């Protein structure tokens, strides 16, 4: 169980979401079920099966020819804060703050 809680802390840190202790309890429980389900799959013997990363192996490429991009106004339409045509974001905090 302790392992599960340190995993929850790690995930909360990675996703920059602060969790209350009740939330941690809730998520630790859910995580246990999720990991359990994944564990179930691992019971299968996949020794002779090559790993599959994609179901669709048909790949293609495109020519290196520029095409129209979006108008700047369109690009910035959902941006909460801007300065001329730049996106303004809060200062980047270090992890200790």
């Amino acid at each position, binding site marked *: 169980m302790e392992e599960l809680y340190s995993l929850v802390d790690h995930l909360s840190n990675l996703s920059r979401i602060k969790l209350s202790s009740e939330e941690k309890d809730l998520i630790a429980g859910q995580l246990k079920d999720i990991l359990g389900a994944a564990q179930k799959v691992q019971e299968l013997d996949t020794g002779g099966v090559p790993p599959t990363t994609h179901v669709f192996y048909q*790949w293609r490429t495109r020519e*290196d020819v520029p095409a129209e991009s*979006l108008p700047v106004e369109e*690009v910035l339409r959902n941006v909460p804060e801007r300065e001329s045509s730049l996106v*303004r974001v809060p200062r980047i905090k270090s*992890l200790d703050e």
Partner: protein
Amino acid sequence: MNYRPVIGLEIHVELKTETKMFCSCSAAFGEEPNSSCCPVCLGLPGSLPVINRKALELGVKAARALNCTVEANSRFDRKNYFYPDLPKAYQISQYDIPLGHSGYLEVEPLTGKPIGIQRCHLEEEAGKLLHHGGSLLEAEYSLVDYNRAGIPLLEIVTAPDLISGDEAYCFLNELRLLLLYNRISDCRMEEGSLRCDANISLSPVNSNSWGNKVEIKNLNSFKAVKAALEFEAARQEEVLSRRGEVLQETRHWDENQRKTFSLRGKEEAADYRYFPEPDVPPLQLDGIWIQKVEDSLAETPAERRRRYREQYGLKEGEADLLVAHPSLADFFDRAAIKYKGYRQLFNWISGEITRIARQKNISPEVLDSGALVETLQLMDEGSINRGTARKVLEEALVEGKNPAELALDKGMEQITDTGALGELVDEVLRDNPRAVGDYLEGKKKAGNFLLGQVMSRTRGKADPSVVKEILEEQVHPRKR
């Protein structure tokens, strides 16, 4: 105890393409902020990335230029992290099957020492963050331009084969030339199209154990790489000599203080949650295509230096100088097809062509090599002298005029009529009896003065060596 530095480099270069890695937005530098963005590079829902064939080709070209094994079934992976320079909150990169691996680059200026290339892989560039008010951590807020986000990027990771700042410097120069001659990247550090991080640890001499590795960031030039590595080697040695511990950490190079600084802050081991990129199917590169790309490789800087030495008879330093400046070397190659006085050619390219290019701010790439060849031919025929040739060349290059016509039009053609010159010399000698007297008494300066007088009366159109001969002939009979 004695220590030796163990150094590895991680280099990122933007590939020389017209468009981004996975969309058709322009990859041009210096556009209006956020004007080269589309649903794909902004990661809007429902958009799908499609690989830029040219970027793939340049990636394979770089891999083969670095003697790497090309992985035909390479694939892309998703690297997840939160940072405002990533509009998608992930970067499409390559993780466990990079495009190229297990290569090396022989660095001729390090007497051909091979430096291992662990891997080179394709990924997308991040956006550009401008920190408002001071450094990264002191900024009040940041501004983001996503034009750069999605530009094809090649990451090259060396083996820890370098042992000094100087070796790192030489390696980077050789790598840059290799990429430039193959037109893989512009390698402009000032525009950010080439960046380098370095890692260094100290290892006791006569031991295979390695100390803790320090990564150095914020290196803005090859000279900074060298200086930062030298500083860091000394700092670590000092720590170890007083039995301290070198912390495994990332440090920033401060160009003004010429020191590295710890970024402090707890660094949790990064967890990028890599997984195979679901939106880009794995590559299935065709062997014939890979071979075709390999066949298009330019000669290596080392091969080029050898060619200049052996085929054109240039001295080692001359060949090095030419190869270090690709636009001059290409100019030389274009001119050498039509002009066989290779040493003369080299002298004019390293002298006049370099001067004109610098003064007029024109790249030698666009200068007409034919103009130099014709000018040198006019000079060799004796139609114009060296000084005139310089003027003709500059006008021909800057204004695109024909050197032969320039020489004629401007009356720049050399006076070769010795009769006319003889009269001029006679005039000058009669007008300057004192100088003649001085010269006959052995004062060299007076001779130069007389020569200058004749040259100025011809407005520089005479061959000084011919004038000198006539002067000698005429001055001695005047001895009393």
